[in-house]
């Protein structure tokens, strides 16, 4: 009995415990780092004030070119110290933000863990109660029902824990990235991709190949396909919507102004050549570069790689797609423009019929970035 509970609990909590370890930190250490920072700031600040006072004194007590030079040197020193102080303030804020993010992540993880324990406990009680059923032969089926239900619930909750954990880690990465000078991190940054761009394109056999000019290149990051849990997109309501004219002359309705702008922006790129890692509009784009920059110019920032552009709300089926929605594969993404068509950066950027297959990649889903 106790061994069963033991096994169930340990197994059921495996994922949340792993995330807990990943998120583990020492709040006292972070607090200490912050306090130390404040102390440093104060002491540097005092130095600046001191230098400033000295300079004023020097000016009032003497004159001549030596004094001027000394004053100038002092002023530039004061400026450097001020810069240092500004940067220091930024670091301090980032440390505080990181601590807060970790804390929120931990709380969410703990909540999921509590929920899993609750489910296990309820199931264990039911399993014990099943032992009272006569004759004993009918207990097996009942126990199986309980355990199968429990398994379903735990895997759902574990999925939630995974989503929370990923969010936390992404937020931490963001904070780190901002601190590091606002450059896009990871392998998808344009700096590193410029180097590999040409060679990748020349060996890119399937671009514009078998499936009728479709199938753009790998938009980045291979590895496991991640499907986030998102709200389901609501259908358009009466009186809402923004009209778009398609190249064929047809008029379609986008769910909002942002989506409409994004579609217009994407359509303005038709014919632009495919460049792996490209985000230069009118020059060279990759699949996620096309969707990202099109939404960016419409005022909505999307993540850089295809598989990350699973944001906003999930559109449950192909017949509910609206202009501006994204069709996302593990390594490709396209934007729905309406009338059963989508625009994608193959080579070049072109319009094609909406599909869910893409050479050798797994389809993740349909997403509406504007929710």
């Amino acid at each position, binding site marked *: 009995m106790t061994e069963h509970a033991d096994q169930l609990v340990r197994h059921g909590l495996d994922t949340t415990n792993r995330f807990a370890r990943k998120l583990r930190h020492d709040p006292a250490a972070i607090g200490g780092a912050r306090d130390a920072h404040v102390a440093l700031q104060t002491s540097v600040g005092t130095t600046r004030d001191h230098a400033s006072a000295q300079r004023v004194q020097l000016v009032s007590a003497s004159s001549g070119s030596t004094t001027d030079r000394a004053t100038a040197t002092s002023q530039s020193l004061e400026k450097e110290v001020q810069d240092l102080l500004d940067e220091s303030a930024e670091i301090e804020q980032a440390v505080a933000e990181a601590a807060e993010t970790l804390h929120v992540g931990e709380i969410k993880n703990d909540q999921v863990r509590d929920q899993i*324990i609750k489910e296990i406990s309820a199931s264990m*009680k039911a399993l014990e*109660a099943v032992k009272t059923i006569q004759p004993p032969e*009918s207990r097996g089926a009942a126990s199986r029902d309980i355990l199968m239900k429990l398994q379903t619930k735990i895997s759902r909750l574990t999925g939630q824990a995974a989503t929370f954990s990923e969010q936390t880690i992404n937020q931490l990465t963001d904070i780190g990235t901002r601190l590091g000078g606002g450059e896009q991190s990871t392998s998808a940054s344009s700096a590193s991709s410029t180097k590999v761009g040409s060679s990748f394109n020349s060996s890119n056999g399937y671009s514009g190949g078998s499936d009728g000019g479709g199938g753009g290149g790998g938009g980045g990051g291979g590895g496991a396909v991640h499907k986030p849990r998102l709200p389901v997109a609501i259908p358009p309501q009466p009186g809402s919507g923004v009209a778009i004219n398609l190249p064929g002359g047809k008029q379609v309705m986008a769910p909002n102004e942002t989506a409409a702008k994004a579609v217009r922006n994407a359509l303005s790129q038709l014919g632009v050549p495919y460049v792996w890692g490209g985000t230069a509009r009118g020059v060279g784009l990759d699949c996620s570069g096309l969707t990202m920059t099109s939404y960016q110019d419409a005022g909505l920032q999307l993540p850089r790689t295809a598989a990350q552009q699973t944001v906003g709300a999930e559109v449950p089926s192909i017949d509910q797609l609206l202009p501006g929605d994204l069709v996302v594969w593990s390594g490709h993404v396209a934007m729905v423009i309406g009338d059963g068509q989508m625009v994608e950066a193959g080579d070049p950027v072109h319009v094609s019929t909406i599909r869910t297959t893409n050479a050798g990649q797994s389809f993740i889903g349909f997403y509406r970035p504007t929710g």
Partner: protein
Amino acid sequence: MADFDIDLATARVAEEASRAGAEAAARIARSGPVAGKASSPDSTIEVQVAPGGLLTGLTIHRSALRHGSAVLADRIFELAQRATRRAGDKMYHALAPVVDAAQLQTLGYEPIPDDDPDADTYSYGR
């Protein structure tokens, strides 16, 4: 934040479960073994099942045979379903204070409303 103690959590779950088990056993002991029974209006067929639907008893009077095998099979089937629902109803009332409603539902133990034709009207003073 205190570290999560998995041993403590396990012990607590096990203890809660064994307490629930003991209480369930006590409640069932008071009510007697739970079985679902159903019989045809003329009492020529009687079916008894365990909670969950395992057939534990079947009586067919000679006179029930004259309707033919198809009718007989249909009636037994119908009575078995009714008996299963009644067993579930009894289990529900016996275990509801001990086990979560969601778990009872998973097991198929659901109360039968009073106005339901399957309700076991003569055995409860509800």
